[in-house]
């Protein structure tokens, strides 16, 4: 396989703050590569450097053989970008938006018209194409936002948390679109803080935290790093002190990690069944009512917890 994206020691500083600390990774042609990490981990800054919006403080990357530092215009022709925040003209219709952005990517004439029609079909908005974007739902706007990134048929598409803040139905549609694009041969760099999305979509995942790429590999390779651990999720009441419970659970033999997030306590252990009784007893001793219990096979959440000592949504 050929690496269409090659990132070497890419770093970005803002004054004394290091937003990205020299990340290095490759993306193979035709794969979906996810950058998984919590908010503020450096995902958007990394994409912003790769898309030539920000200049790196140090390091470099090549995309399609073009350097982001020395040949940014050539990089821009190769990539498509779907930014995290909507970047559309809300007083224009979807069609007008697509036409304008297509023109900015050097499309014109019949090829532009045909491509706009194709993209409208692809994002399922042909019927609403003549409505102004400001009249759309959040999910529909997200779809137009994606459509703009697809207009010029980029070889590599960067998608920066495209499902944030939308309803489950629209989220499902976007994930299906990502899969379709990949099946058509497009390479994707997808950033998310939703572990489920990274698991569902990615050929490989890079886990990023505090500006550092702390692990990279397929889901199987990553979960092997935490051994054969399972994750026990306790759902507790709203008024219960989940953090105190997590602390108490760390003392149980067999518990590797225990973290509280909102009204859930995640416990990493070798065998969930071995510790279940002790966990329930600890909860009862503290007067905490367990509403439900999930047992999960090793996943990226567990990997993140294992590597950072924190849950992904911290």
């Amino acid at each position, binding site marked *: 396989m050929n690496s269409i994206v090659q990132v070497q020691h890419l770093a970005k500083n803002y004054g004394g703050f290091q937003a990205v600390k020299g990340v290095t990774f490759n993306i193979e042609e035709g794969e979906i590569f996810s950058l998984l990490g919590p908010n503020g981990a450096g995902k958007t800054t990394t994409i912003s450097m790769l898309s030539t919006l920000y200049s790196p403080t140090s390091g470099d990357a090549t995309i399609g053989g073009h350097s982001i530092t020395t040949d940014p215009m050539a990089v821009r022709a190769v990539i498509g970008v779907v*930014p995290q925040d909507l970047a559309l003209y809300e007083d*224009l219709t979807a069609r007008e938006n697509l036409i304008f952005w297509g023109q900015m*990517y050097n499309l014109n004439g019949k090829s532009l018209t045909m491509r706009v029609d194709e993209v409208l079909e692809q994002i399922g908005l042909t019927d609403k194409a003549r409505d102004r974007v400001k009249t759309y739902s959040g999910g529909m706007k997200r779809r137009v936002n994606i459509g703009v990134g697809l207009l010029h048929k980029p070889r590599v598409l960067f998608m920066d948390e495209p499902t944030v803040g939308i309803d489950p139905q629209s989220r499902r549609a976007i994930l299906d679109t990502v899969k379709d694009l990949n099946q058509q041969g497009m390479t994707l760099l997808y950033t998310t803080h939703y572990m489920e999305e990274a698991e569902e979509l990615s050929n490989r995942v890079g886990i990023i935290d505090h500006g550092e790429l702390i692990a990279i590999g397929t889901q199987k390779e990553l979960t092997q790093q935490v051994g054969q651990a399972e994750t026990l999720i306790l759902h507790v009441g709203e008024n219960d002190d989940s953090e105190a419970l997590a602390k108490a659970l760390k003392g149980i033999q067999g518990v590797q990690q225990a973290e509280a997030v909102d009204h859930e306590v995640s416990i990493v252990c070798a065998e969930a069944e071995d510790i279940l009784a002790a966990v329930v007893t600890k909860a009862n001793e503290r007067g905490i009512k367990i509403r439900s219990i999930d047992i999960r096979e090793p996943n990226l959440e567990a990997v993140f917890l294992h590597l950072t000592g924190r849950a992904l949504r911290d």
Partner: protein
Amino acid sequence: MLKTFLIGIKDLRLAFRDRAALILMLAAPFVLTLGLGLVTGRFSNNSSGLSDIPVIIVNLDNEQLGNALADLFHSAELADLMEPTASSDPEAARQLIDQDKAAAVVIIPEGFTRSIIPAAGDRANLTTAAADPVKIEVYANPSRPTGAGIVKAIVDEFLSRVEENLISGSVSITQLLMSGRIPPDQVPTVIAHMSENLQTHTTDNALAIQMNSSTADGEAVKFDILAYLAPGMALMFLIYTVSYGGRSILAEKTQGTLPRLLISPTSPSQILGGKVFGIFLTGAAQMLILIGASSLFFQLKWGDLFGVVVLVLAAVFGATGWGMFITALARTPAQVGSVGSAIMLIFGIMGGSFISLDQMPAAVQAFSKITPNSWALDGFTTLALGGTLADLSTPILALLAMGMILFLVSVFMFGKKNLVQK
């Protein structure tokens, strides 16, 4: 270039889809013009404008040029517009103005003609005499700004024609002398001949002004007060439009479309050029729509069409410079909005959109030169009084220089700003 054009067209489209902006760009100046027209009685009868402006002429010169100017105010062509009375006492005439008995007094001082055209015995000093001419005084009534402004415009037109003839005469003599076409001893004779021509031509100035004040079919044109009010309002709200356009640069940054443009294969200069072009297009469209609407609904005659179009483009260019400068100074779209609104009002007042600058203190008149309103209003008044594009060189050059200087300063300031990062 194409992308610059496309970005400009997109901005024009967006501006005309913003209802709030449309109200301020088009409805507000139109309604204000209508309201001021009603207040001034413009719509109360069939008259198309001002008439019988009372003016007092104090001719202490009593020679060729002074008499020519006095005759101009008494000419048949200005009979409907002006109601002149003669006086020999400047102080008494000023008191009449203070008592609101007339719109203005024109005081032609003794020696005015001789300060420009030397007497027969002193013709060798033509050029030195012209260097320090005696000045005509227009003592204006502040409560009748429009009438006083028209009197001032007529006097200015007369003086500019005198000066034009004088300069061309001096230059001609110098060139003839230097090229050896006339010997030095014949200079007084040539000057004598040219002085006679100057007197004749200046007397003919009445004809020149008559010609400028007439329509193609020879009917005399009355100065329409709306020809002052309508451009005044349009120019004031033009400042709103250019600040609205400038605000869109920062708004695009906030809404993420500017970063998206910057990561497309479009250069920063194309993007900035497109934004400037968009401001220019929107301002030009606003002005031309207002001019069209006032012509259609108020039967307002703006004057020479070609001159109007060129002046509009120059005015919008100058104003666009201000829009860019305001944007370069501000940090947020809201700041551009508030600063833009303040500047719109300040320039409106100081630039003569409400009150003729002739009625303003000298300091305000000096300040007005930094406003596009002042220069453009000057041009529109000239056109309404019958001038053509050829008479607009000063305001047009001033507006173009203003726009260019402000644009360069703004580009420098934008370079210091990081427009990419939120």
